[in-house]
């Protein structure tokens, strides 16, 4: 009868998730199902839930995972398929890009809580002062020009802030999509690492030069949080990062909330792929849980249209979890939110199944959806970060990345 059931949810400690925890009482009230939260920092969460799922530890009834894990775990049969969600939940309302990214073989394995792509956020006031105008689809060349124009060390303003922090989901993701926008790719169709190709050298050199010239001090350790706080303190002219950041840079904690503009992530001139990614934090149910029904009930609640409205009613439309549902973008109230349209456009501009200029054997834009990727990409991004910090040259970093990648692929038996 479920009157005293308790479900345990592992989740990441970001703003939207923490906000959801605040509304859990409502869920418990409605259903009588109690909820235990295990809130962890992203990297800790990932290693924690991965250990649990691979060993069938069964500690969690719901796990917060991303687009990277979902297809792999789904294929292994470790997740409960979400193919019997209620009619009122309206699965078809989920943005197609998200639904594809969270499915394996057409079966949905995780429900997106919110989704994101990446885009350019810039200071309209500084842009104006510099006498430039941001196109809605800028190129890297324009970005560099604008960064140069806005950079003002005397005022402690950096032309541009970008992620450099090691970690596949941090700087690794950013440099991968930057690579995409320069025509680079991780692997050729035979799983040979491609870091020895000129496109990578171009991309990395461009990034390093841009950041050394106009980026903040110590950008090699800056990730999403660091850049967010820099931008909110008015220390960045531009910031290219997750679309979810839009609600923060226009929110209460921001000192520049009134002067933020948005544009699509850039591409290198002549390359059709843009530097934007696709990501969703989604809720999935590990196979074998004793509380499958209750877990499903929770997922339906947390990723429902009603939840979005609940948040909107309490905190305003700008703060609802974005990027998951089509209906949200059709909502006239939400369309008033300044970054709504650009977010949707960015999401639509990303295609996980065709991320690069040259064909690749993998799915995923800012990641390669194979189990070995997280570890390998983290190591690669560490080499890149060392190059950002000036501890090695771009060439050395690329050579090491090439070696690490090929070693891993050999160990895993791809080659």
């Amino acid at each position, binding site marked *: 009868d479920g009157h005293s059931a308790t479900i345990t949810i592992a989740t990441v400690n970001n703003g939207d998730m923490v906000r959801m925890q605040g509304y859990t009482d409502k869920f418990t009230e409605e259903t009588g199902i109690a909820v235990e939260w295990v809130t962890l920092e992203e*990297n*800790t969460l990932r*290693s924690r839930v*991965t*250990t649990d799922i*691979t*060993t069938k530890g069964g500690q969690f009834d719901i796990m917060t995972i991303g687009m990277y894990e979902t297809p*792999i*775990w789904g294929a*292994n049969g470790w997740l409960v398929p979400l193919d019997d969600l209620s009619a009122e939940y309206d699965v078809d309302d989920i943005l197609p890009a998200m639904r594809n990214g969270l499915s394996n073989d057409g079966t949905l394995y995780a429900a997106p809580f919110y989704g994101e792509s990446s885009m350019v956020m810039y200071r309209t006031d500084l842009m104006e002062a510099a006498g430039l105008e941001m196109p809605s689809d800028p190129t890297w060349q324009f970005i560099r020009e604008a960064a140069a124009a806005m950079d003002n060390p005397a005022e402690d303003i950096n032309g541009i802030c970008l992620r450099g922090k*090691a*970690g596949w989901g941090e700087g690794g993701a950013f440099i991968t999509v930057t690579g995409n926008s320069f025509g680079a790719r991780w692997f050729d169709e035979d799983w040979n690492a491609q870091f020895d190709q000129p496109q990578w050298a171009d991309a990395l050199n461009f990034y390093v030069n841009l950041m050394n010239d106009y980026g*903040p*001090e*110590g950008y*090699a*350790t800056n990730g999403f949080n*660091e850049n967010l*706080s*820099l931008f909110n303190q008015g*220390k960045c002219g531009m910031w290219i990062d997750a679309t979810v950041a839009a609600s923060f840079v226009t929110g209460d904690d921001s000192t520049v909330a009134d002067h933020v503009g948005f544009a699509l992530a850039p591409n290198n001139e002549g390359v059709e792929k843009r530097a934007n990614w696709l990501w969703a934090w989604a809720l999935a149910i590990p196979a074998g849980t004793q509380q499958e029904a209750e877990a499903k009930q929770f997922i339906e609640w947390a990723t429902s249209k009603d939840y979005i409205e609940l948040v909107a009613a309490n905190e305003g439309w700008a703060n609802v979890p974005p990027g998951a549902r089509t209906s949200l973008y059709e909502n006239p109230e939400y369309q008033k939110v300044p970054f709504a349209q650009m977010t949707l456009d960015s999401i639509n501009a990303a295609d996980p199944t065709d991320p690069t200029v040259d064909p690749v054997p993998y799915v995923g834009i800012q990641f390669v959806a194979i*189990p*070995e990727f*997280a*570890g*390998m990409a*983290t*190591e690669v*991004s*560490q080499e890149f*970060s*060392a190059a*950002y*910090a*000036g*501890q090695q040259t771009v060439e050395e970093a690329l050579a*090491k990345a090439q*070696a*690490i990648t090929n*070693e*891993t692929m050999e*160990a*895993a*038996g791809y080659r």
Partner: protein
Amino acid sequence: MATKASRSAARVMMAPAVILLLGWMLVPLIMTLWFSFRTYLPLRGGDQGWTGFDNYVRFVTSSSFWPAIATTLTLLIGVLVITIVLGVLLAILLDQPMWGQGVVRILVIAPFFVMPTVSALVWKNIFMDPTNGLFAHLWRFFGAEPVSWLSDAAMPSIILIVSWQWLPFATLILLTAIQSLDSEQLEAAEMDGASVLSRFFYIALPHLSRAITIVVLIQTIFLLAIFAEIFVTTGGAFGTRTLSYLIFQRVLESQNIGLGSAGGVYAIILANIVAIFLMRIVGKNLD
């Protein structure tokens, strides 16, 4: 004391501790050994059979292996040297007569109570952050460019953090040791015409050797296992990947249990080399 009865009683009373620790050592060790000879990729079908020594070969030939060993030893030695040198000096200072000795001692011990995670978080964000960190403010105040501690000087920064955590331990052990130094010996040396420095080097320092050994032993045990500090601050980037961090990456990030287990076996070997090396000294110095 040592009658047959007491000896057999002793054996019985040792048993729980010995059996538990033997189990705690052997069970994981055997499982680790087992995994290390198998291709075990949880995300790709789990245990895929015997591979012989492939994992071992792959682990040592990996470009990260020797740097990781070097990093491990750098961290170990760096922290040991700092904590012991500063510990000795601090212990001597704290041994002097002064006002408020108790309070000062509390201040000095305090870092020992701080969880490694907390200490890493606090140092990383509140002090070493190149934009908002206190050091950055300080540097700017003096007109200098703030340093990105955790990228430009990652290893020294981690050594600093870890040393900060372990300095109290070293100081306290050394302080107690200094207090146990027979004052007549110092007086004898004084009568013999030894200056303050001579007394320190010829009398006090040799007296401290046993305490220093203990500091080295205990700290080594803990330092070889340092993890949280690196995980939180650099995530192994900028040359701060120790052997145990490398194993973490293999096991948890790359989800290659076989390879990681082989790494674990290497770590055990390294630990034992260090241990044997230590035991040699300790064996001599422990009574």
